[in-house]
């Protein structure tokens, strides 16, 4: 699995902790620069009738804003920069990963778990600060008979704690699976091509399939960023209002 290998570019050691600038960090930087340039250009135009770049930036802005108003509601405005940054980081990682010889930083559990834990602790900390003890009513759905309450609370607790796990593993697994699948199919093509003789014709099918897969992976790249942002919104909703 060479494509997921992390190799340091500038080795940095901070008090015994290895925080080298790696190929992952490089592509993270490229993603950050790309999103900053795109959004910065879009923000600097400010024209009433938008041009192409401004249109793209405003569409992304509107897309994330829509996600927030639909999933959190009007009070979700305060989380707009957070969800927007999450969405941009994830989609940039996913899409840049589609470039040949690039590195997909969202295919690493450390990164996706970092983002998911950020959402998780934001919910926990803001929720407790804002609602105090009432925040834990999240685990007690209304209308549950007393003898069943312990089980329901346990289930709610587990589902709450498993949020960062599912959020991070979903993205990481999708990215890894897509890239591995494409590599496997490319492996078939190489296998047929290296057999010699007329066997090269057998590589046409995996190549054709891989072309379809690349398109599909672009779709997955977008969908996973979308899902990540939507779920972040749904989790953040608990800090704005507790349903019961």
């Amino acid at each position: 699995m060479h494509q997921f290998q992390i190799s340091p570019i500038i080795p940095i050691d901070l008090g015994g902790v290895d925080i080298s600038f790696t190929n992952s960090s490089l592509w993270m930087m490229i993603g950050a620069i790309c999103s900053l340039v795109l959004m910065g250009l879009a923000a600097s135009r400010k024209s009433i009738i938008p041009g192409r770049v401004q249109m793209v930036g405003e569409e992304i802005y509107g897309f994330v804003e829509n996600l927030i108003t639909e999933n959190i509601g009007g009070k979700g405005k305060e989380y707009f920069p957070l969800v927007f940054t999450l969405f941009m980081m994830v989609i940039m990682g996913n899409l840049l990963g589609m470039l040949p010889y690039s590195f997909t930083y969202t295919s690493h559990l450390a990164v996706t778990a970092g983002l998911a834990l950020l959402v998780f602790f934001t919910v926990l900390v803001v929720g407790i600060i804002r609602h105090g003890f009432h925040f834990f009513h999240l685990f007690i759905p209304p209308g549950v008979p007393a003898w069943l309450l312990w089980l329901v609370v346990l289930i709610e607790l587990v589902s709450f704690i498993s949020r960062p796990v599912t959020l991070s593993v979903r993205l990481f697994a999708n990215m890894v699976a897509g890239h591995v699948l494409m590599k496997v199919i490319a492996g078939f093509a190489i296998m047929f091509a290296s057999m010699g003789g007329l066997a090269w014709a057998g590589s046409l099918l995996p190549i054709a399939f891989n072309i379809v897969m690349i398109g599909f992976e672009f779709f997955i790249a977008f969908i996973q960023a979308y899902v990540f942002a939507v779920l972040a919104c749904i989790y953040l909703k608990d800090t704005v209002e507790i349903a019961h």
Partner: protein
Amino acid sequence: MLILKNAFFVMMGLFFSAGIALAEESMPHAEEAAHQGGGLPQFDPTSWPSQIFWLVVFFVILYTIFSKSVLPSIGTTLGNRKAHIDRHIAEAETLSKEAEIIDSELKAALREAGQSASSEIQSAESDAKTRLADAIAGFRDRYEKEIGDAENRIQKATDIALQDMNSLVATLATQMAEKVAGISADATQAETVVRSLSNKASKAA
């Protein structure tokens, strides 16, 4: 069917493992990857601090710039556009309302003009009618008077003619009586007789 399905899955599995093996073999760094334990590099915790460190760095940079500059700026642009469009829509609405008012005013003016025109036409018509009637009545009066005058004149002429005729008849009768019977009759007596006779005749007529 089930056997076929299972066989298909087994075949697919074989193909996949062969593909992976060949792909690994064809890659120059395959040995290096194998050196690291063969598992996914994602589960190698030595790279985690670096990844999380740089994730935090870039996330903080992006979050700061997005929240402080980019997003408010785009928000204002969108707000400005919305305000601009709303203002134009409101303007268009007031203009269309004004146009409606003008239209209704125009219609009212047209209606009024039509009404005044028709009333004027009616008054002119009735005026003309009365004038015509007056003219006709005047003409009738005049010609009736003229006819009456003419009739009077004719009557007078007839009367005069009749009077002459009576006296003529009376003299004729006295002369005839003298000549035929040799009686000399009184002329005035004869005239009275003739007049009474002619009166009787005119009464009978």
